[in-house]
């Protein structure tokens, strides 16, 4: 749009603003001067009287100028604002207007009022109205008596919990969280192999309850999920328990207020809960993986709703998961792991790393089944109390992994089908070929530091079938 003046001065005011009334004498002085002056009123036609003011009924002029405060005086050159002063500030107004001695008798300064463009509903309306990228998703018009939350349930869009209704205003606001245009195709999402655009992710992120600043994390997670390594088709279709577990590393954790401390795997933090939920809603609504359809899980698990948490890097004795996976501390990343859990580990008595490692190993043996090996991977979420013990003893992550791998290199004769009177187990021919079998492959065990500061516990997040035969842990950089 073009401004109502090409060169000169423009003032945005509103009747419901004391400072705007205060500066009326100044407007009078400027109107009597040689330079063209246009007055724009946000809230009432005919205000201020005597200035032939333009009523910015739709607030398009204010939006175009980016007005956040009334009054604001602008210098316009060539149809664009080149200088401005918010509120009343004599020196500032004199700088913008080039006129000295303005507002004799007025105080030197007086803060202004909030622009009507900044009212929450109005802001969202304007955002949609002026979006350079029209959204292309189908519009679902609800009846006047229809409750939007119930409508989402009725249309099969939800994960069983209520969702935030994805209105155009909310989605437009969500899209402010990324520089990517809504039509940008992020990926082709299994199992339906449907094109997944930024707009579709934003809609589902709104429904999940995300804030716009979470969107880059969700976008990175969706891309990672869609890749062949993560195999979201298999993760969604399996009868097994798993869903996508998300672990966030890097500066974004603090910027969006994620919780890596008390109750880290539980409820209470909006970013933790809604980012994981948004990914699962995208997989459901865009990818087409719905329970009872492609999703045939015997039990499922909370990771199919949301299991997303950041690592407590600052308190960790070790390098972060992201660094282990080849990223720098300055990069923000999200790691996807097809998994479920947690399995609890209680050890309040160990005072040596050897003892604690034995506890962890015993508990890790039960992942999938004590007699199965080489199938699932696992992440051990090591609590601050447990981590302190390893720090004190100078154990690195590699030391701990090596100790556990050593403890979990198990006699083949115990692991094969039939051993111990249990039919489940590895194929019997394995016992003829090998004496010992490692429970986890060399890259099948990961350690992440998180949790509240009190409690001699750790948590095992056990995975689905790992590696190329199933789902490979996938880490993606977050563009933020």
């Amino acid at each position: 749009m073009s401004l109502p003046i090409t060169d000169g001065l423009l003032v945005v005011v509103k009747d419901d603003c004391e400072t705007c009334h205060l500066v009326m004498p100044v407007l009078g002085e400027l109107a009597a001067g040689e330079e063209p002056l246009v007055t724009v009123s946000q809230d009432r036609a005919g205000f201020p009287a005597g200035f032939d003011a333009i009523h910015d009924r739709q607030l398009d002029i204010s939006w175009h100028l980016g007005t956040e405060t009334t009054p604001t005086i602008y210098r316009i050159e060539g149809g664009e604002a080149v200088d401005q002063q918010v509120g009343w500030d004599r020196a500032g107004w004199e700088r913008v207007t080039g006129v000295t001695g303005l507002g004799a008798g007025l105080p030197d300064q007086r803060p202004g009022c909030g622009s009507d463009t900044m009212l929450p509903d109005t802001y969202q309306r304007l955002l949609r109205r002026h979006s350079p990228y029209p959204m292309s998703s189908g519009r679902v018009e609800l009846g006047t008596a229809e409750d939007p939350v119930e409508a989402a349930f009725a249309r099969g869009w939800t994960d069983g919990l209520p969702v935030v209704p994805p209105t155009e205003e909310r989605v437009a606001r969500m899209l402010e969280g990324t520089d990517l245009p809504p039509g940008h195709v992020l990926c082709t999402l299994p199992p339906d192999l449907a094109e997944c655009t930024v707009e579709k992710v934003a809609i589902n992120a709104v429904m999940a309850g995300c804030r716009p600043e979470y969107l880059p994390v969700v976008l990175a997670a969706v891309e990672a999920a869609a890749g062949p390594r993560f195999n979201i088709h298999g993760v969604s279709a399996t009868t097994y328990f798993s869903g996508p577990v998300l672990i966030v590393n890097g500066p974004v954790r603090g910027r969006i207020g994620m919780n890596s401390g008390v109750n880290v795997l539980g409820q209470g933090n909006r970013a933790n809960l809604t980012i994981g939920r948004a990914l699962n809603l995208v997989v459901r609504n865009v990818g087409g993986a719905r329970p009872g359809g492609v999703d045939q899980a015997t039990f499922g698990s909370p990771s199919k709703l949301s299991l997303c948490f950041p690592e407590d890097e600052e308190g960790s004795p070790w390098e972060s998961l992201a660094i282990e996976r080849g990223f720098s501390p300055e990069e923000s990343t999200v790691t996807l792991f097809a998994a479920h859990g947690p399995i609890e580990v209680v050890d309040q008595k160990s005072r040596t790393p050897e003892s604690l490692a034995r506890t962890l190993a015993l508990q890790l043996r039960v992942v999938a089944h004590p007699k199965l090996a080489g199938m699932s991977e696992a992440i051990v979420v090591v609590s601050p109390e447990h981590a302190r013990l390893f720090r004190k003893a100078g154990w690195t992550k590699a030391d701990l992994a090596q100790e556990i791998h050593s403890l979990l290199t198990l006699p083949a004769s115990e692991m094969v089908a039939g051993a111990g009177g249990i039919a489940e187990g590895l194929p019997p021919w394995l016992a003829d070929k090998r004496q010992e079998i490692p429970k986890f492959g060399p890259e099948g065990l990961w350690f992440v530091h998180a949790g509240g500061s009190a409690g001699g516990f750790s948590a095992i997040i056990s995975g689905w079938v790992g590696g190329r035969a199933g789902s490979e842990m996938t880490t993606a950089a977050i563009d933020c």
Partner: protein
Amino acid sequence: MTTLLDPTSERTTGERSISARPADIAHGTVALLDISKPRGDVFLGRLEELLTEMGVAVRHYRKPTFSKPAPLDLRRQIAAECGAVIEALAD
């Protein structure tokens, strides 16, 4: 009136009729596809016995992993070599 944006892929479901069933399987070859799950071989082994008794030729195939769709080449090979396929889900 409230207007919501559709969160789904907005794809319409394509409808395809299933292939015509073979009139009989005695004169063709039946593919026995093991999806690589435990005990799939038990199920397919028993089917092979029954089919062989009926005079039906069988061929064995195996998916590399049960966790992913069968590779396209495998599907084409089965289609080229057999007139019917039995896939064992097992467990």
